[in-house]
């Protein structure tokens, strides 16, 4: 079977530039000032809520939320609310013209609860009013007759951790007949035998917390009714095409009657994946009904209560190793605390199982991942997507094993990691760039690992220092989750300027800049010729969701393909205009175009474009790329789940105050193998920003519920994220470039990888600082808050 042309193009460019150093490119890997930097330092970019000033005569939509975490709805009385000044309507489940569901992966989540509520945050009615204040106040008057049901906050009340069987209980999802959402497993080799033969076995229980995205821009949606009965919605969403689908389903409209535009996003981190659907649908419902623009704005509290989180997990890990430090087998049970709805949970659980044994050579594994519903805010997508939750226990286990074996954690890892030509636990052959060894060695060098390990071991006094490493791998893009494609369009205007369109969004981390750099490099034009349009379901091509670290590799490939095809045509034309020997001799260094052997004889880029216009050479191109299909066997957990992996090694250097349990990160070293650096500024910001977000996850972030399922920390004064004062004093950032042949110039993703191994590296550093075998085992969950660390210090009897 012959390869699709887009695969050939990507391969051709990869092999042509394989030996080229990144410094030798013109724009790829350079610090190009991002396309929106000047507007951002001027306060000019338009985030969704900023559009309000252009909107006339709007109605406001407010969500009335459940007061119980688990209850049947026996009745709903909206009459008092309707009488409130300014109120136009109170919409309930009955007012939904299409399907009352916004479930992302499976249809388990009503937009407006009808029969029962499953967490405090479920929407029971929408008040539509002339002002937001009116709508909020009237919301208090909606009275719901609830029949409270037993509230389940702990997944272990629902599932038996021994047998992993569901216990008898009052079902949260009675309509599904079970509160087990999904199960995934790996069954490879002979685990029993491996453990029998092992010289050392290490086992422990681990917990990772919920994490709130806390993007500084709260959610907003503005829906505008269209004359044809359709609707245009501006909304905070990472995935406008998914949002369109959800809205169309709720409204009962064909997709082409719903237009979703994603304005500038003030952060997303995965959180703007499904909440976008919900807020857009709510606003659209009101806009269609009242034929007026409808505005929905979340306060911080509504944001925290109303959007999904990183899943909490509880896990049990057992590792077996031989005396010489070879890993023999892994056994693990991982329970995902799902919260009330599936959201992206099935995919998160799958990513967790795929990565559950870490970037190591493992021949014998028995792993189970189970996602269990509870009456809490649903878990969903968050940078890392199931991988941080398994990398924490795996990397803690590695350090404990190393201690048991009397080995240095780095040496122990180097003995067992995946290298080129190895097979993953799933049996996937790694036939290209595995830069993990190089990443570890570089991280060791940059952090001063060995000197510090030695030095810190001898420090006296109440303030200890510790240094820890954690490594990981992360499958790029969506793998076996679904159809994996991407597309862009590039239109050269008659004046030579360029319009670039893609349905991928920029959450703020600058992924789009990577695409600009690729386009500029291939076409031979400076990046400032290029204008990026907002992702818009009616104007930009569907590029699949902006998730899973796929923009650079997948969007980059589509960009590369479009640019390549345009360039070929223009080279042909330029060769004939200039009389070059062959089209391959054409050099485009816009504004100059010339033949390689005669740089003095030039035409301008604009002249070339003008000639193309008159000679019928098309100046627009569509770029499409489809990833090779992923393979996954449900029974054994084998196959080739992702087409490539990003690798990394993180070293954290911390200070632990034995008298207070307070942990501070002093220095952070991050080394990632991302195949090729395409957007240097963006890559570094990922490395640093991802570290800081991961440090929050490691040290301070968690959700606290009361016994009835009410979230206690619903704002930023109680949900703490790192501030300027928590920022480490020093960052060492380095990139390894072990290219991937099916990616633009070899580039792999960094969006999610940048958070995956931060928490375990910090936990390993804390354990190192405590210098006690017992304490090493006790560091088994995070956040490592002062009281938790202090309790470990006391329990393990660590003395200054």
């Amino acid at each position: 079977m012959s390869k699709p042309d887009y695969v050939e193009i990507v391969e051709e460019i990869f092999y042509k530039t394989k030996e080229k150093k990144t410094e030798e490119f013109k724009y790829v890997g350079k610090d190009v000032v991002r396309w929106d930097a000047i507007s951002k330092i001027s306060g000019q970019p338009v985030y969704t809520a900023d559009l309000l000033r252009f909107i006339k005569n709007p109605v406001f939509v407010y969500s009335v939320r459940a007061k119980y975490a688990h209850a049947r709805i026996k009745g709903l009385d909206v009459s008092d609310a309707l009488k409130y000044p300014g109120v136009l309507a109170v919409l309930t489940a009955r007012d939904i013209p299409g399907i009352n569901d916004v479930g992302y992966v499976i249809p388990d989540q009503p937009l407006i609860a009808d029969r029962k509520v499953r967490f405090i945050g479920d929407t029971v009615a929408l008040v539509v009013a002339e002002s937001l204040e009116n709508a909020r106040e009237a919301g208090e008057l909606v009275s719901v007759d609830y029949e409270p049901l037993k509230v389940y906050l702990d997944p272990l009340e629902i599932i038996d951790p021994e047998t992993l069987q569901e216990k008898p209980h009052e079902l949260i999802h009675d309509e599904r007949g079970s509160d087990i959402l999904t199960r995934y497993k790996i069954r490879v080799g002979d685990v029993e035998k491996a453990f029998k033969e092992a010289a050392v076995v290490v086992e422990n229980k681990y917990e990772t917390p919920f994490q709130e995205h806390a993007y500084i821009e709260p959610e907003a949606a503005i829906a505008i009714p269209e004359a044809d009965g359709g609707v245009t919605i501006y909304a905070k969403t990472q995935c406008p095409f998914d949002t369109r689908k959800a809205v169309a389903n709720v409204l009962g409209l064909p997709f082409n009657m719903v237009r979703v535009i994603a304005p500038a996003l003030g952060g997303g981190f995965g959180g703007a994946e499904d909440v976008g659907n919900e807020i857009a649908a709510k606003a659209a419902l009101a806009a269609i009904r009242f034929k007026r623009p409808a505005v929905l704005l979340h306060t911080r509290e509504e944001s925290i209560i109303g959007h999904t989180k990183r899943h909490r997990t509880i896990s049990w890990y057992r590792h077996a190793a031989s005396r010489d430090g070879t890993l023999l087998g892994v056994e693990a049970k991982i329970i995902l605390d799902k919260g009330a709805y599936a959201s992206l949970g099935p995919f998160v659980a799958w990513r967790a199982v795929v990565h559950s044994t870490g970037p190591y050579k493992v021949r014998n594994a028995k792993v189970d991942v189970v996602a269990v519903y509870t009456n809490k805010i649903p878990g969903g997508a968050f940078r890392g997507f199931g991988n941080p939750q398994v990398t924490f226990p795996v990397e803690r286990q590695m350090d404990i094993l190393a201690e048991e074996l009397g080995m240095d954690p780095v040496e122990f890892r180097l003995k067992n990691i995946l290298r080129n030509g190895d097979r993953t636990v799933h049996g996937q052959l790694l036939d290209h760039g595995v830069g993990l060894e190089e990443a570890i060695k570089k991280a060791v060098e940059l952090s001063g690992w060995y000197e510090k390990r030695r030095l810190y071991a001898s420090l006296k006094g109440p303030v200890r220092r510790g240094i820890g490493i954690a490594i990981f791998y992360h499958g790029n893009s969506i793998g076996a989750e679904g159809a994996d494609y991407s597309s862009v369009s590039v239109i050269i205007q008659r004046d030579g300027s360029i319009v670039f369109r893609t349905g991928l969004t920029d959450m703020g981390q600058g992924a789009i800049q990577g695409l600009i750099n690729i386009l500029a490099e291939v076409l031979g034009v400076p990046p400032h010729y290029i204008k990026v349009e907002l992702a818009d379901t009616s104007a930009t091509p569907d590029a699949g969701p902006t998730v899973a670290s796929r923009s650079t590799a997948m969007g980059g490939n589509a960009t590369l393909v479009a640019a390549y095809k345009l360039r070929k045509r223009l080279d042909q034309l330029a060769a004939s205009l200039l009389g070059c020997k062959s089209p391959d001799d054409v050099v485009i260094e816009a504004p100059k175009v010339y033949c390689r052997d005669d740089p003095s004889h030039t035409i301008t880029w604009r002249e070339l474009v003008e000639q193309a216009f008159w000679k019928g050479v098309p100046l627009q191109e569509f770029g499409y790329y489809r990833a090779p299909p992923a393979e996954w066997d449900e029974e054994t957990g084998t196959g080739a789940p992702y087409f490539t992996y990003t690798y990394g090694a993180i070293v954290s250097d911390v200070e632990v105050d034995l008298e207070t349990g307070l942990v501070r990160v002093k220095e952070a070293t991050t080394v990632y193998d991302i195949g090729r650096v395409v957007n240097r500024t963006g890559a570094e910001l990922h490395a640093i920003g991802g570290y800081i977000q991961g440090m929050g996850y490691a040290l301070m972030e968690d959700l606290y519920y009361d016994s009835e399922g009410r979230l206690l920390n619903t704002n930023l004064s109680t949900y703490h994220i790192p501030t300027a004062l928590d920022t480490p004093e020093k960052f060492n950032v380095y990139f390894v470039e072990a290219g991937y042949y099916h990616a633009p110039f070899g580039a792999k993703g960094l969006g999610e990888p940048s958070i995956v191994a931060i928490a375990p590296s910090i936990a390993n550093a804390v354990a190192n600082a405590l210098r006690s075998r017992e304490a090493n085992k006790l560091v088994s969950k995070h956040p490592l808050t002062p009281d938790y660390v202090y309790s470990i210090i006391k329990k393990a009897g660590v003395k200054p």
Partner: protein
Amino acid sequence: MVKVSLTVNGVKYDLDVPPTERLLDTLRNRLGISSVKEGCGRGECGSCIVLVNGNPVHSCLTLTSRLDGAEVTTLEGLAPQGKLHAIQVAFIEARGVQCGFCTPGFIMITKALLDRVKEPSEKEIRRWLSSVLCRCGSYPLYFEAVKRAAKYIKEGKIYFDEKEVREKYHLKVLAR
């Protein structure tokens, strides 16, 4: 309603506002000044910080009705028409901008800091900047931006021509 006369970015406004109206809403909804962001409405995130008579305040916690005669400066008023302030240029050069939602708050707090301390220490920079939250985690680059801005101001380079800045920086390769 309360009558207030207010100078915002050098322009005088005579307003009739409800006694409980927040400065944030006056700026965003009445005057169309959109650099002022609402991230929490509770004085926690700092994305709404503006200068009132030169002092940094959370506009989400400030009532407009109390500001009769006050002078308010937002990011839009940092430099004269057609110019950019050294702090803004420093923020481009330091490469820290990500989603940008926090950026106006950081620039305004930097202005307040540099108005008071010409060459702030690392510790002072961290302390001042800790009043604004950045979830994208750009802090270290923002510290760098403050230091660059201080240097520019010390050299007397306070305003930069906006067109020139655009020419020099918009999608241009930055040297390290």
